Structure formats: structure tokens, C-alpha cells
């Protein structure tokens, strides 16, 4: 049974649909991220789970209990706010104690011991009597986290609390979050627009777009098997090459370009959301920079493009090449530095690494002039 059942939720603000018929589940002990660009409805989802907003339609269940109309102060969730919202008139210890005081069954000395233990866990022992304002950004983050955790909620909700930190501190806090989650065995639901944070920390990610769920899966699934062009673009870098469907059969999809046919045998259900494509539709061929192989000779791989090296950037482990091809610039991450600027190379990738998505602007008719100029060597 899921810990959280977010079932068929729609949230409307007047004419604006912030969340549109979304359903997902979160299981006990998971670290789940809700990821999406700003305005995609992720914060609204979190606010509905915490009880600060109520859904227009749908049911939210926590531990199998209907929470849809339960006020925030009676929910077994605790939130780490975006700007932390530490009480400025209370000390660190008093901030942490605030939620515990609302649980009547705990005597004061046990409360104190618990606060001390929690502060030790996040390396803030001895900070109990400080004012939150005296603490650094990272220390404040940890106080806010402990203030939520100490109540032993069914689930801790995070509203992008790391967004304000610099990169190094953010990476440190990511590791901290995972360590603390392991140690306390609490379920974390983390909202962010930062794919790096989400990928680094989460067991599963829920990717939102315009109030709808685009894909749910592990970081690896979303990266290697994106459900749509949007997912491919949002998670990591991707090369996008436009093409036109020439013919569709049960087992193969023939793509045509200005230069010639591109014969790839993909089952049509690999197209985004299974929508049938028919001859004449515009599609995009997407490939990750690190899935492209560079060679001096043409290979037998399904996809192959000839181009010239325009630029190369050393990135430590690998080299990033900018290849000028007849279809535009192709970004390639390679572990070899063997190619120089102006070298002619063959960029190739296998069928499995080439994702094909229906183009989002399919209404454009293809003419000889605006036809994608993908030059594929056969």
C-alpha cells in the first residue's frame, strides 16, 4: 500500500489549471522528487499535500486515510520551506521544539534530549541557544530540516530549500539529505526545478509540464528512456534532429530527409505516448552527446552523420566536440581527444540510443524548402 496516494488531482485557480488530473503514489522510505520548470504546478502539488491548498478534484490519501479536507496542523506531514521560515523570535532549540510541544505526550526532558540528539545528527551540537539569524545558510538549512524531522512525520516535504545555496554547498547538502534520509528512514518528497539536485538524490522522479505528469521514473529511466522530447530536453543535454515520416509499418519507421531516406527499425509505440504517426508527420530524432561515437571512417551503425569539427572543449574526463553537420550543430562527448578542429569525422550512434519523438509543431507542412536537411549517409 502506498504511503501517499495522490489520486486524480486537479487544481484550478479561476481559468488557470495549475494541476491537471495528476495521479502518483509514494511508498514508505522513498526519496521522490517532483521536478519541473517554474509554473509547472509542482509547488501547488506540495501545498495540496501539506494542506495549504485543497484540490478542485481528486483525493489525497496519506497512510490510507483521506486527507483531502484535513487542515495542515492535523496532517502527518512536515514541510521544509523554500526560505526555511525559521522563527526569528525563537532560538534554534525552540524552533525545533515548536512542533514537539504540539505533541502533548512528550515530557520536557525527553523533548530536550531529542532536540540535542537531532542537532548532533546534523553536526549542530552546541547551537541550541543560538538565534537562527546567527547561523550560516547551510546551518539554517539543517535546522529547518531537523525542525521537520524531529516530529517523526510520515513524510517530509521540501519546497526547493536548496535553491538559494551556492553550488558547492548545495552538493554537500544533497549528500547530507541522503544520509539523513537513510538514517531516519523517513519518506522524502522533494520539489525542485533543478534536475541536478533531483537526479542526485531521488529514488524516483516525477517530471511535470504545464500541470501534467510527463513521466515518472528513476533518474536513469528518465535519462536513458525519456518519454517525450520535453523529458529528453529537461534531463541532461540532447541533440535534436528534425525529420519527416515517410512510411510506417508494424515493425519499422522510415524517415525521410532532404538528403535521403533514413531507415530505422523502431516499433511505432516508441513514439511519445504511443500516438500513431502516419506518413508525412514531423518527428525529432534525439540523441545524448555521450551516446554519439566519432570515427574517421563510416561505420555500420544505424545513424551516421558526416561533419567537421568546429570546436572542442576539454571537460576533464572527456572532450566535448561541436560538429558541424548538414543538419546543424551536433554536440558530442567523447573520451578521445584524437580529433582536431577542421577534421572531417563520422558521428554515429546506434538505434537504441536514438529516440524518436513526434514533433510538437506537426501542423507545419513539409515543402521542398523547409524540409529538414538531415543528411544521413546510407
Amino acid at each position: 500500500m502506498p504511503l501517499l496516494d495522490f489520486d486524480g488531482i486537479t487544481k484550478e485557480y479561476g481559468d488557470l489549471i495549475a494541476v491537471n488530473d495528476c495521479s502518483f503514489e509514494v511508498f514508505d522510505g522513498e526519496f521522490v522528487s517532483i521536478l519541473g520548470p517554474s509554473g509547472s504546478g509542482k509547488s501547488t502539488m506540495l501545498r495540496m499535500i501539506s494542506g495549504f491548498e485543497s484540490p478542485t478534484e481528486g483525493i489525497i490519501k496519506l497512510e490510507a486515510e483521506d486527507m483531502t479536507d484535513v487542515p495542515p496542523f492535523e496532517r502527518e506531514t512536515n514541510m521544509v520551506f523554500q526560505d526555511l521560515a525559521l522563527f526569528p523570535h525563537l532560538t534554534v532549540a525552540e524552533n525545533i521544539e515548536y512542533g514537539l510541544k504540539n505533541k502533548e505526550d512528550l515530557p520536557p526532558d525527553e523533548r530536550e534530549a531529542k532536540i540535542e540528539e537531532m542537532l548532533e545528527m546534523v553536526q549542530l551540537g552546541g547551537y541550541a541557544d543560538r538565534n537562527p539569524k546567527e547561523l550560516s545558510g547551510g546551518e539554517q538549512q539543517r535546522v529547518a530540516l531537523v525542525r521537520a524531522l524531529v516530529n517523526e512525520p510520515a513524510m517530509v516535504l521540501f519546497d526547493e530549500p536548496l535553491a538559494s545555496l551556492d553550488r558547492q554547498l548545495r552538493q554537500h547538502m544533497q549528500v547530507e539529505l541522503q544520509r539523513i534520509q537513510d538514517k531516519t528512514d523517513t519518506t522524502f518528497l522533494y520539489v525542485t526545478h533543478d534536475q541536478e539536485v533531483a537526479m542526485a538524490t531521488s529514488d524516483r522522479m516525477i517530471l511535470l509540464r504545464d500541470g501534467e505528469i510527463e513521466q515518472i521514473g528513476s533518474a536513469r529511466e528518465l535519462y536513458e528512456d525519456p518519454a517525450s522530447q520535453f523529458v529528453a530536453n529537461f534531463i541532461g543535454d540532447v541533440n535534436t534532429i528534425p525529420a519527416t515520416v515517410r512510411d510506417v509499418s508494424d515493425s519499422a519507421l522510415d524517415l525521410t530527409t532532404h538528403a535521403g531516406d533514413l531507415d530505422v527499425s523502431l516499433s511505432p509505440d516508441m513514439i511519445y505516448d504511443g500516438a500513431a504517426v502516419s506518413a508525412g508527420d514531423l518527428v525529432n530524432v534525439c540523441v545524448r552527446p555521450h551516446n554519439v561515437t566519432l570515427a574517421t571512417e563510416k561505420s555500420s551503425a544505424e545513424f551516421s552523420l558526416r561533419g567537421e569539427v568546429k570546436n572542442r572543449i576539454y571537460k576533464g574526463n572527456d572532450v566535448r566536440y561541436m560538429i558541424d553537420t548538414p543538419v546543424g550543430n551536433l554536440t558530442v562527448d567523447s573520451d578521445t581527444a584524437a580529433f582536431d578542429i577542421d577534421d572531417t569525422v563520422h558521428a554515429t550512434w546506434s538505434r537504441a540510443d536514438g529516440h524518436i519523438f513526434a514533433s510538437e509543431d506537426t501542423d507545419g507542412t513539409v515543402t521542398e524548402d523547409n524540409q529538414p536537411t538531415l543528411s544521413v549517409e546510407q
Partner: protein
Amino acid sequence: MSSSQLSNSGALSTQLHRFAEYVRGRRRRSLALIIGAPVLALLTFFVLPLLSMLWLSLHTETGASGEFTLANYQQLIASTTYLEILKTTLVLTVETTVIVTVVGYVLAYGIVRLSTRTNLLLLLVILPFWTNYIIRMYAWINILQPDGALSSILMSLGLLAEPTGFLYNRAAVLVGFVYVWLPLAVLPFYASLNNLDEDLIEAAMDLGSGPIKTFLTVTLPLTKGGIIAGITLVAIPTFGSFITPVLLGGTNVTMIGVVIERQFNEAFNWPLGSALGMVVTAFVILMLALSTKLGADLLGTEGEAQ
């Protein structure tokens, strides 16, 4: 060559130093001018009169012939009349302050909650300031007098049999005070409530506090500064007020401000009037000291124990 350069640079640095001194001196002079003028005005128009009032309150009469005496203050303490007046003044001040604070805070809270982009509601609260204080008091006389608006309304509702006046009692004075000071108190209340971070309220609720507990543990302590400011703004002028009790209280409600006026203009007992005036000054100083102390705790950088 090098030594001449050195001496040159030495001379230059001396010049620069002198220039800096000159600028600093000028700045100090202009600063003295900027601060000096108001300090002088304060000394002339506030500190000197206060000192002369203190002097007068400790002497038998005005001018050089006055002899030192504590009789004026002894008279204040010995006479039950004055103590009674002081008590009336203090009770009315406390009542006014409490009512204005509670009503004003609720009002400010409502305005903060209701106003989205415009501060139209706040503007409406400040609107009475556009009319002169005296005129507003006469308006209340019109409302409360026999045959006045209140009497007429109550009669037409059948709640009163004959025209009745509501003037010249404590209640009328209290109504006048509350009416006059309410907008003044709403402003600091509004400012502090408006500055309150909404996330803190949500954090309190998220951590299990219901609306009442959230208000008592977060909203109230975090708007303490505004509340203290509002209380100070109301209590000080109420304690020394003169026009409102005279116009709405008549001879039935005597506050210390009224007595002081009478000592100066009717009884011509300036020393006693000064002594009474010093009591008001003492109250003002006490209120300011109290509000500064409580306010300082709020602004204090050290975490305060709650």
C-alpha cells in the same frame, strides 16, 4: 634624485593630509550646523520650558520673589481631589489604550488579510485625519447631544421614549478617545502585520499549531514592536489630553489636562499647574522608557528566551 623624490612625495603626503584635515574640519563644521540647529531649537523650545516648569513647580510663585518649596507636590499627594483626578485620568488612559489596541489590531489584521494590491482600506482608516480634530469632536457632540443623531435613531427604533443626551460622561469621553486614536494605532499595527512573513504562519500550522495557537505563538510575538508603538502613540496623548474631556466630558469628567489648564487660566496658580504638568511629563517618560525597553528586546540580536 631619489631623496628629492622622497621629500617631494613627503611634501605631497603632507599636503594631502592637510587637505584631508581641512575637508574633515569642514565636514565637522557643516555637521555641527546640521545637528546644531535642531538641537538649539529643542533646547530653546522644549528643554528650557521644561526646566522652567520644573523650577516653577518647586517654588511659591513666578519670578525672582518665588521661594523654594515642596508644597505644590505635597498638595498633590495630600489632596484626595487630585489623586482622584489622577486615578480617573489613568483609568481612562488604560481603558482607551486597551480598546484601541484590541479593536485597532483586529482592524489592521483584517486590512492586511483583505487588501490585495491596493491599500484602499488603509486609506479609509486614515481618512478622518483629513478633518480637523475639533470639528470631529463637535461632530460627536452633535451625535451624542439630546435630540442628536443617536437619540433620534434610538427613538425611531422605539428603544427610547423621549430625547436623551449621551454627552458629558465617561462613556462619551471614551468614545471620543477611541474614535480619535484608532486610526493612529492602526498604522503601526498594519505595518508590523504586513511585514510578517506569511511562511512563518504556515510553518507554525505545518508544525501542528491551530489558528489560535499560531496567533499566540507566532503572529503576536512577531508583531510586538508594532503593538508597543501603537500603545505608546495612544497612551501618551490620552494621558495629557484636554480638548476631548472638556468637549465630551464637560464638568463631569475631569482629567489632569483639564486641571492644569484651569490652574493656569482660571486659578492662576502656576506653581501647582507646573507640578501637575510634571506628573504628565513623568508619565510620558515612563511610557517611553517602557516601550524602548520592550522594543529593544525585540530588535536585540541575541536570541531571547520565550
